């Protein structure tokens, strides 16, 4: 489960984040390679478009926000279910 798989798409998003923020704040952008393929109201719509366009290949869905939320699952990193992040 290597996050490097979408490295190109993540880098492209970060490079264009400000442009995307100017035109579609709060929307979900669909990115494949170094190209964006539209902005969608929610991640479900973006996923539908992604499968239509790229089938089962990897693609990136990203919420257009100024700063990514750092997600937390304390049960994992505190070892409450004896698992790990």
């Amino acid at each position, binding site marked *: 489960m290597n996050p490097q*798989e979408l490295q190109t798409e993540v880098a492209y998003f970060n490079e264009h984040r400000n442009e995307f923020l100017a035109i579609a704040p709060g929307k979900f952008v669909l990115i494949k390679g170094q190209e964006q393929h539209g902005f969608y109201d929610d*991640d479900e719509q973006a996923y539908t478009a992604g499968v239509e366009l790229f089938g089962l290949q990897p693609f990136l869905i990203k919420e257009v926000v100024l700063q990514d939320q750092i997600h937390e699952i304390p049960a994992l990193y505190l070892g409450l279910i004896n698992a790990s992040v």
Partner: protein
Amino acid sequence: MPLFEMQYGAKTQGADGKPQVVPPAAVLQHVGPFLQVAVAVHPQHAERLITQGQQPPEAVTGLALIDTGASITAVDEAVCRKLGLTPTGVIPMSHAGGSEQRNCYSIQILFPGSPLPSVTIPLAASCNLGGGTQPYIVLFGRNLLARLKMVYNGPRGRIEIAF
């Protein structure tokens, strides 16, 4: 709104070797609120496989812990591999030493033996849940809990869920 009541219960072995019933309230307090689930590929993923003349992989069954402390829903990495999923996102996730990037996958969660409708999650974070003593394959985070109503009935040892 479909309503589902999950009543917990368990039996243990007493000091005399005879089975003893554990009160539902104690079970819920000890283990936490969990549900039986099956994780499958997203319906559109399945549809695409069928179009290609392939059968969608069989859903993976296990337990889902309802975790109000989790900001996002997580699915076990091994389940993602078993289902042959490809990533749909990358998110930063905090851990004891800072944060790291985690892949996200699109999944469908079904609730066998209950009237609850299946739910789709386009961006479920992959984590290693398999190292634990409990057979959890999913943690229901607040992004999924945002879609439902849940009553945690501690004294009765049950939860009630309405979608």
